[in-house]
């Protein structure tokens, strides 16, 4: 790999390497260190010196063997086509790239970052953070053409990190706020992802700020970044077009997309309903929203759930009915993160129409579940069949069963 340029090899074969404490030359960040963060920012061109790597504070070769050190990793990039929205996507590349390095691992992100270098790679000559910076610059510029200038700064001086940390935390906070607050109404473009068409020819994912791709791997910001990086690639911008049905989430642009990419199989798509013209599913969805006629409501089952759901079918069986790029009313492949969307199944009653889900999912998404529903959605521990489910819902006083939920019109 870029033979001889760097002291150690780089490549995907090094992802997932475990570096035990005994093999560790030095670690940066991690649970033993309070002052640590990583941040990628898009800057104006004159604020970035291309290919500059700076190390502020002691470097690897002078740090005590086996020690845990503070760290700030700051990457500044500039480019006419780079938009601020994709900063988090660029920042997540740090995780990927650093794990490509032989004998180096990277965990977590932001102010929780944790990196380790092993003794073998230190022995091969990876003795300076400067080398890491050079590798990062090599990978960023190799992958992302729209980066015109890039500089990398490592800080190991705890006083300086302490000074910058609150500013980084503020950046993270404002990014999160923006991501959480962004609505379909705020943007002009959605993104389509055709990656799965290589396996399921009539499926197309329509990604909006309120609907992450079914696989859970690509949100609207990822879509935007991917499109900016490769405008001819499998992720394309979709002009949103007029809104036809704000409740079901039908947009003229999404309909046009469905028609074109399904090879004429479908001409309408509701982004937030499991009825009528539901979003199609490839084979990669993380979970299925399935209709339970006896309760006139929905269950959710995730891919890892073993055994039968409340309607007697396991995930696998229902997945067969859901997948393959078809519109199947009452079966909707979703990413779990869609449960956090303010438009989650909006037309059908959203969370208030959910009556069953595995316990682990209920725990994981407790914060997204409306407070007045807590304890009212059954899990596999509460019921094993539909009769028991109906009795449970009556007993628990589920608002949908009590007729307290009004569907939007």
């Amino acid at each position: 790999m870029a033979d001889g340029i760097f002291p150690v090899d780089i490549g995907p074969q090094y992802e997932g390497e475990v570096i035990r404490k005994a093999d560790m030359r030095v670690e940066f960040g991690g649970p033993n260190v309070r002052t640590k963060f990583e941040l990628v920012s898009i800057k104006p061109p004159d604020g970035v010196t291309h290919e500059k790597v700076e190390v502020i504070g002691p470097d690897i070769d002078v740090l005590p063997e086996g020690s845990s050190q503070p760290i700030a990793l700051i990457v500044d990039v500039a480019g006419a086509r780079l938009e601020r929205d994709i900063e988090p996507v660029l920042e997540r590349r740090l995780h990927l790239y650093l794990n490509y390095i032989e004998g180096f691992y990277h965990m977590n992100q932001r102010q929780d970052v944790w990196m380790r270098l092993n003794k073998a790679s230190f022995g091969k000559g990876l003795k300076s953070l400067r080398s890491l910076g050079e590798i990062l610059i090599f990978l960023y510029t190799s992958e992302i053409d729209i980066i015109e200038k890039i500089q990398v700064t490592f800080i190991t001086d705890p006083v300086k990190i302490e000074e910058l940390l609150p500013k980084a935390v503020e950046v993270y906070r404002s990014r999160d706020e923006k991501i959480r607050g962004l609505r379909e109404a705020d943007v002009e473009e959605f993104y389509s992802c055709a990656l799965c068409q290589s396996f399921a020819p009539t499926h197309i994912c329509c990604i909006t700020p309120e609907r992450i791709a079914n696989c859970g791997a690509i949100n609207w910001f990822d879509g935007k970044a991917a499109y900016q990086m490769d405008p001819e690639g499998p992720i394309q911008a979709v002009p949103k077009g007029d809104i036809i049905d704000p409740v079901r989430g039908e947009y003229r642009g999404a309909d046009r997309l469905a028609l074109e990419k399904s090879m004429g199989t479908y001409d309408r798509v509701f982004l937030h309903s499991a009825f009528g013209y539901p979003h199609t599913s490839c084979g990669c969805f993380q979970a299925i929203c399935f209709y339970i006629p006896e309760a006139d409501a929905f269950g959710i089952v995730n891919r890892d759930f073993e055994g039968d759901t409340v309607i007697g079918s396991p995930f696998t069986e229902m997945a067969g009915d859901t997948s393959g790029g078809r519109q199947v009313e009452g079966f909707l492949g979703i990413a779990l993160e869609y449960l956090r969307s303010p438009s989650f199944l909006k037309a059908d009653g959203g969370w208030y129409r959910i009556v069953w889900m595995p316990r682990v999912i209920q725990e994981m998404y407790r914060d997204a579940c409306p407070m007045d529903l807590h304890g009212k959605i059954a899990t596999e521990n509460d019921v094993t069949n539909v009769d028991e489910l109906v009795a449970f819902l009556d007993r628990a006083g589920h608002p949908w069963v009590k007729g307290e939920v009004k569907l939007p019109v």
Partner: protein
Amino acid sequence: MARNERQTREANDFIRAGDSWEPVGHTPLPGILELRNWDRRLLQTWKPFYVPVTDKCSLCTYGECDLSEGRRGSCGVDSSAMQARLTLRTCCEGLAKILAQARRLIDYLVEVKGRELPVDLGDKIGIEAPHIRTVLGIKPASLGDLERILCYIEDQLALLLASANTGFEAAVSDLESKAMHASMLTHTVMEAADLAAITGFAFPSSKADTALIDVGLAAVDTKKPVILLVGDDTVSAVCLVDYLRHSGLEGKIEVVGMGPVAHDLVRYCPTAKIAGPLSALPFVLRSGIADVVMCGGGNLLTDLLSETRAAGAAFIATDAGTACGLEDISSDNTEEILIELLREKSILLPDPSKAAAVAVEAALKLSASRSKAPPPESSGQHEAGKMRVGRGPVMDTEIRKVGAPLVLGTIPGVIAIVGGSNYPGSPGDIADIAEEFAKRKYIVVLAGDSAIAAALKTDNEGKSIYERYPPDFDAGGVINMGPGVSSAHISGAAIKIASIFAALPLRANYEVVADYILNRVGACGLAWGACGEEELALATGCNRLGIPVIVGPRCIKYGRLYLSKPGETDWSVMDGRSKQVVDTGEPSPEHLVNLLADKGAVIVALAKLCMRKNDTPQGRATKLTHYIGLHRQYFGKLPADAHLFIRRASDIPIFFKKELQAQLGESGWQEKPVLSLPTLVGTYRSQVTLDDVVH
């Protein structure tokens, strides 16, 4: 070939066409001609390449004829047709071997459990029989169904063998098509056999983390009486373990397996041992550890009997398939047989229950009277390692889970390592090859003797690859599927991908499914050791299904490869979206079956063979990263053909972008379209249409 009304009715009855689980595709219960057009299309791109072992043909009584320098024999056959006929015969022999194995097993299970016993693979396997569904069009529900499936395949075998007679078929393309038919049916019957075994004997299924068992002569406790099982007679192995359990002798006698039966033995009884791959059989016999050797079915060594006698052990042939010239005394009672065995030291006893009792009693007696030295520590045969017990079919949930990573390229492909041992290089090479791909996050699946050989190389902590990598069908997983017949679950997993990702109907839809796999599923096989006939059939069956295979130099004996030619082969496919034929210029997969002797060359070729025309840019970039990285690792330079696989700049791996750009410039590279619906359908005559492909 059109069926008449009666034949159609019977076929529909056979597959229960009225069951509405999926529409019946174009080729239910295919005969010799039904998939011929597909074969001819494959052979147009990947042409048969013959390496005859001899220029002389002595297949019929007209000859011997000299076929050198383009001459034809008295019957008119030329060298290629002779070799193709031999290929067909070999594939038929392979099919027959597996059929016999399946027949013995299913007959036994029908006898003891009844035809109604439901096929049961556990709760995580919904598509129980991808091959049987795809080839025949039936969902096998019971042992009785599996039995009927064998009958259909036996009929086909008779017809195939008839055409292999002298004076019959001499067209190379038809001989090859028939070899492919026999080979497709080999996968099908392998699947039937393993479904029966898992169902009938409750072998592990729907579970990834099966038990870790000991492999290697060093793991055998020679202080105990030792019974060595060799061959593929699963029934005898199961009966032996049952006998030990019922008589309270389990743990007091060391039961050791070699060959296919070894896998089944440990699936049934994880405290049993495997002495090593079959290539170590002569050494194991001569080491004298065995008190009794039981042999059923094939085992490569035809002098097993004399080797066993020379080592002072008793020999029981358990199956008519290898009767060894011995007298059949199964009508005698057990005491009489035991006396005869102790006196003569060898008997034919095709009654599994009696064989079990006699073997155990003989082992107890003989062990007490023999003094056994521990095996010598020379010749590298003293290794031991852990192997995970064969786990049967890949679970549907696992297939679904790898969907996104396969699409995104984080899993670059599936590498299947199967077949016999006795590799061209060191025995540890097979573990090295598996590990190279596991650490690069491919899914590595093994079966048969290769799965056993891979257990014998351990790291400095004494751990084999089965202990170092997860047992899941997922990125970086290393899986043992089971014995040779379990190889069908590997090709079956490729079929499941078509069903699960694309919801493609499998039922009697072979051509569409094979086209899907050929163009979309980055899986390839390696059968690097000495190949038996069934392994040629296994490889050829993979080829018909669109899966390329690399074989080792010992397969030169079979004298036929399917190769493309640089600069000559037409790599056009139909773009299902634009309905235009597109010349991709991309040799993917480059060959359907190729022969390589060098470990590095094998590794690089496997990485290259995982590329498919439908790869997403991310997927292609990852696959190229590994191909180029491995090429540099083993050959010290970038591959000269990397540019052929780059369609757009986004395909270029980031690690080599700057270097590759120079190569692209020199080669006059130009951007090519990235096809998301490449297919061969529409480029040849077929009843299958583009609508079937899009579904």
